[in-house]
């Protein structure tokens, strides 16, 4: 017998889960409309599969798994592999003023989609290399090389205080 949540029960769950799921989706995809679609899709599937959520306390973990699963489906579509190149980083002719440096999320927007996703999955979602590779549909070697390339770019943008020398490799 598949349990279905009552509307009031599920609405309360959505109110709790929406913000963290939306933030994860936004960091992964970098675009509000797409983030809303992804978070909404994750919660829609959570509703539809509520019978698999054995404990109400586990519902958020389930929804987060569904969100990463949805993201994995998205990443594995050919269209997502068709990444846009990052904007070229400007050549630095002088030591940058630390106060001019962008926030981390601004810097994240300058990364190509796969590199951005690698950073978010590894350092926000705290996934290991293998799980990140599985989510993105690429090899662990590619995750490592993309992580290294992304950290190099972020270090140029954010400076040593955020990413000290030596933080560029696993």
């Amino acid at each position, binding site marked *: 017998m598949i349990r279905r949540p009552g*509307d009031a029960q*599920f*609405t309360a769950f*959505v*109110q709790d889960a*929406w*913000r963290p799921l*939306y*933030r*994860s989706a*936004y*960091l992964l995809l970098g675009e*509000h*409309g*797409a983030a*809303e*679609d*992804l978070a*909404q*899709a994750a919660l*829609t*599937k959570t*509703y*539809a599969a509520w019978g698999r959520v054995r404990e109400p306390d586990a519902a958020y973990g389930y929804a987060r798994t569904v969100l990463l*699963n949805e993201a*994995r*489906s998205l990443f*594995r*579509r*050919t*269209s*997502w*592999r*068709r*990444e*846009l*190149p990052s904007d070229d980083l400007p050549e630095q002719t002088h030591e940058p003023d630390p106060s001019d440096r962008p*926030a*981390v*999320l601004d810097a994240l927007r300058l990364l190509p989609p*796969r590199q951005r996703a690698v*950073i*978010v999955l590894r*350092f*926000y979602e*705290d996934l290991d290399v293998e799980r990140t*590779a*599985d989510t993105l*549909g*690429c*090899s662990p*070697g*590619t995750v490592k090389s*993309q992580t290294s390339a992304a*950290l190099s770019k972020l270090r140029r943008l*954010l400076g040593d205080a*955020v*990413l*000290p020398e030596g*933080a560029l490799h696993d």
Partner: protein
Amino acid sequence: MTERLSALLHDEALDVPVPAAPAEAIIAGGRRTRVRRRLGAGAVSAAAAAAVAAVCLMPSDGSGLRLAPDPAAASPLDPAGWAVSAGSTLYLGNGATAQLPDKVKSIYYTSAGTVVRTGTVAYTDAPDSAYALVGDDGRVHSLGLALGDRAPSTDPRLPYLAYAQRRGNTGHDAWDVVLRDVRSGDVAVSVPVDGSFTWGGWNAPPVALDGDHVYVGLDDATLDVDWRTGAVSTASHLPAARFPESTSGRVALENRSGQPVRVAEVSTGASVAELSPGGGPGEGPAAVSISPDGRFALLVPWRTCDDDNACVYDQPASEVLQLDGGRSATVDLGDQVGWTPDGRLIRVTGQGVDLCSPVTAVCDPTGIRLGEGPVKVGGNSYES
């Protein structure tokens, strides 16, 4: 060393503006999902067109072309030239089977037989990744190719495996587009192209072989290489910095959200069919798969995968469009579908393999019973 980055990410994420939770829409969507799963596929309506960015590069006159003395002419599509695999066993459409030394990871149709990529894991850059040609008699001929992390391509009318490789020690800006004859293992064609490739994680830009053309996905343009003449131009109707696709001269184009919105002619950009991208998350097709002969387009539903990578379609059936007739049929998808070279659907359900008419949606069993192991179906791209 990355603790500070992680902490800042979490801190700044708290400042991301979050819209109100659409609880009612989510609950309504969840209910619709249940209903759709019971009823099957919905209808597809027309709408929407996508703008296609055009870019220009300096054309090449083909002076760098290296061409074998007798390049292959295009062969007719072989109706029996399809294949499905389970584990390390390849099942050919003519009834023959072949045992590969490792699991089949990808299937490529050629006019000389079926080329497979094998290995223990799906990644193209796995150290044991290998390519072999399986003839119509089921005999396996290793191609002795170590392509590494590259995404090759074939055309079922030609005996070639196409890929790009870096030209010398030239960084990320100079490439050779190579067509390797799978019958001999020799390089039949090599065409130099120039352009930056940094957008993807492969060792060389991905390519798509389609007739006399090889499309090369570079940062600033997708190049159109006429491999018979060596002429290189910009494929002005294919987007730059993308995994190039062209199937019998046709391509599925997507909007900025990645939703497929139309099928177009690669050469002119003219629309062949327009699609509804759907009104919300999970709505509309996840992708459009064009048959190798270019006559049909399958609207591929979204799939849900579990932690073991076992995936099921969110809808049990979907529509196949006749691109030149405007008609459509709804086909039950089973577990997985692919294409024969001549444009019939291959459907795998459990261990059974059916062939389905994309016109009538009638499916007939082939008599093949798949063995154990992960299933791959010809006519799909398994590159990642």
